[in-house]
């Protein structure tokens, strides 16, 4: 076997103003190995990989590639060294086409810097075909859904020869089918001798895919284990430093009256006669493949997008919802799937983000009472155990999981009757996930109805009371969780019976 050591990172240290992100981390990767990197949100996984791919420069430590100590000074140089990366955050140019994005910075050229479009299109089509994707190379990226954009990112990383391929949560926006294709390709690459670094918060993926798992905690290296010898509980303990009880700590709440009833919601080409209801204390899970229209449905109910027809009842009363403000007034909250662009104001503090949708309740005449505001902000920070230096810290400096909790806190501050959660645990570590599930329990116990859109089937099955399955803008199935199985859901999601 060709499993010689490709890469050694030793004693890597990296400090950001006020944060020691990496405190002497070691990591090594062999050719043909699929090596998972695991750790809580903010443990330093992305930072370590950004150093390897030339985005950040290390403060101290050593990187040895093929036996040679090297300095990586920029993304271009990392590429030339054969290091490819799929970043955690999408990094596409929305105005350019799929193929232009795939080959950005490495366009096939003819004389005088003129771009060879034909070759570019052919090669892009080849990579996309390898991923079994039907995205056209000529589509403008802004017209793609997040999931599709994620596929383009993957195609981009696959489009050139790498010796090391880093994948930082590549499946966060993918559903089962695309994930399976991707795994096939990853195994194929590894068989060809490529060393793969795989970061994911989905534990079952790590067990299915990786051969080794390195665990980090608080910027420190904790240890490396062989996947076959590792157990779920052991890994979690390494990650969070304590035992964790249950993965899906679902507590059944008693169902109350109907809090949300949506009837005949339609929008040309996107939503087709969507009808469903949510009761107080109930979690309704929504499953479906990428682009099934789940996000569109959530946005339509929330008044973020216009609809052609349909009625909405909140707590038994017919309600007209034309804007998000209408929805909030009626008692609906929406946790968007894209927290960076739609959920958070990155330039504001944690506290200002948390109180943003509930300023009315802490103001007299439009003047904000700092005391009342601090009251709700601090109680949310405590209640959700948000890890932040304080309410005044900038939200952009928190880890992904904690940012997600800030978004949840914002909506809890409005005391909603119905909370729509679109991919609420996307990119969130197991520990924080369990905490979010506990929050959901807390809410349902208090009589809140939850509509939870999720692409993780275990989560849908583990946390819902009822499951809806969407396909091409329609709800194809509405069943109690007791009768739902992965296979059944997948069948409906694909449009079958």
């Amino acid at each position, binding site marked *: 076997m060709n499993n010689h050591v490709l890469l050694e990172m030793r004693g890597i240290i990296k400090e950001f103003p006020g944060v020691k992100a990496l405190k002497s981390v070691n990591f090594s990767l062999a050719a043909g190995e699929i090596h998972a990197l695991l750790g809580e949100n903010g443990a330093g996984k992305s930072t370590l990989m950004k150093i390897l791919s030339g985005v950040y420069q290390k403060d101290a430590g050593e990187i040895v590639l093929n036996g040679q100590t090297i300095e990586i000074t920029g993304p271009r140089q990392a590429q030339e060294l054969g290091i490819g990366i799929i970043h955690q955050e999408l990094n596409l140019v929305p105005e350019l086409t799929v193929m232009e994005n795939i080959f950005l910075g490495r366009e096939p050229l003819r004389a005088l810097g003129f771009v060879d479009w034909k070759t570019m299109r052919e090669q892009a089509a080849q990579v996309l075909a390898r991923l079994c994707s039907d995205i056209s190379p000529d589509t403008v990226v802004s017209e793609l859904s997040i999931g599709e954009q994620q596929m383009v990112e993957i195609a981009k990383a696959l489009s050139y020869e790498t010796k090391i391929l880093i994948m930082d949560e590549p499946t966060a926006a993918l559903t089962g089918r695309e994930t399976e294709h991707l795994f096939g390709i990853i195994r194929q690459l590894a068989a060809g001798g490529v060393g793969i670094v795989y970061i994911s918060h989905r534990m079952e993926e790590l067990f299915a895919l990786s051969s080794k798992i390195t665990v980090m905690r608080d910027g420190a290296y904790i240890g490396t284990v062989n996947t076959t010898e590792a157990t779920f509980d052991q890994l979690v303990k390494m990650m969070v430093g304590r035992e964790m009880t249950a993965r899906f700590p679902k507590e059944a709440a008693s169902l109350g009256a109907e809090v949300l009833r949506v009837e005949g919601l339609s929008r040309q080409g996107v939503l087709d006669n969507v009808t469903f209801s949510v009761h107080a204390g109930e979690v309704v899970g929504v499953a479906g493949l990428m682009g099934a229209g789940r996000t569109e449905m959530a946005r339509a109910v929330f008044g973020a997008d216009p609809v052609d027809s349909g009625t909405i009842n909140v707590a038994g009363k017919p309600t007209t919802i034309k*804007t998000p403000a209408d929805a909030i*007034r009626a008692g609906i909250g929406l946790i*968007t799937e894209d927290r960076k662009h739609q*959920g958070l*104001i990155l330039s*504001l503090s944690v506290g200002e983000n948390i109180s943003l*949708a509930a300023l009315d309740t802490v103001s007299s005449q439009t003047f*904000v009472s700092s005391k009342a505001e601090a009251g709700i902000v601090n109680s949310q920070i405590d209640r959700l155990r948000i890890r932040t*230096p304080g309410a005044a810290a900038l939200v952009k400096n928190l880890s992904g999981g904690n940012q997600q909790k800030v978004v949840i806190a914002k909506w809890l501050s409005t005391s909603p009757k119905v909370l729509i959660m679109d991919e609420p645990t996307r990119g969130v570590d197991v520990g924080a996930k369990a905490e979010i599930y506990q929050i959901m329990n807390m809410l349902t116990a208090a009589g809140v109805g939850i509509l939870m859109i999720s692409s993780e089937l275990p989560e849908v099955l583990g946390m819902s009371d009822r499951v809806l399955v969407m396909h091409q803008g329609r709800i194809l199935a509405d069943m109690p969780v007791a009768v739902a199985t992965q296979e059944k859901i997948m069948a409906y999601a694909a449009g079958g019976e």
Partner: protein
Amino acid sequence: MAAEQLKPKLSATIIRKMGPLLGLLLISLALALLSDRFLTVNNLLNVTRQVSLNAIISVGMTLVILTGGIDLSVGSIVAMAGSITAGLMAAGQGMGTAVIAGMVVGSILGLINGLLITKGKIPPFIATMGMMTVARGYTLVYTEGRPITGLTEDFRWLGAGYIMGIPVPVVIMALIFISAYFLLKKNQLGRYIYAIGGNEEAARLSGISTKKILVTVYTLSGLLAGLSGIILTSRLNSAQPTAGMGFELDAIAAVVLGGTSLAGGLGTIGGTLVGAMIIGVLDNGLNLLNVSSFYQQVAKGAVILLAVLLDRKRDK
């Protein structure tokens, strides 16, 4: 650990906020050393009065820039509000009516800017650039290209009077800055302004009526430009159809020198006051030092660049 992390960040923020003030003090120190006329009570009152016109406009510009927008029409609004105020007084109206009319005109032009931007979806740069041309043209039509005189006697007080030894424009400016400070720091509207500038879509999805707030902000900018135009008219004891040309650039420079980001979402009103003072002190100082007018332009541009450059470098 939490407290530990808070400290370095806080002091960094303070330095960031103090940067412009430091710049102002340095420039003032240099001028005080070069000219014995600079650091007199009289001259400082003089500078502050000169600064007040731009500073008042800059308050509105700060709000606009905080939302991530820009207002190029303020100079033309200065001229139009001033002309209409003067026109009414020349036609026999009292000062009160005329002043209110001028402020209403400024507000309406600002309102139109806001509607063009929110309802018409025209980028702020273009919407307010169009307004700049139209309002200037209309002012010329209204005044027939001539200055308007024959203003009432009491009207002069606005630009030339004193309240307890402080020039009236300075008092007005102070009141506006204090209000703006509270608006931005303590008020819901202020919070929403920062939120829109930080991430308009997220603000909208948090239930904020972003359009209403943007319209309010441009209206306020128009109102303040109008007020500044009225004070200018009083100072000159006549309305000039060509008044206010280029004022937009001085206002934008004041806001940016004060540390507010043109991308929106970040900045303070106190910074803007400091920024406006830097420009005013520079103008005044270069005059006192008898720097040739051509070199004055070179120097002014260079100092502004240098100040922003140092500010940004320090940030790194």
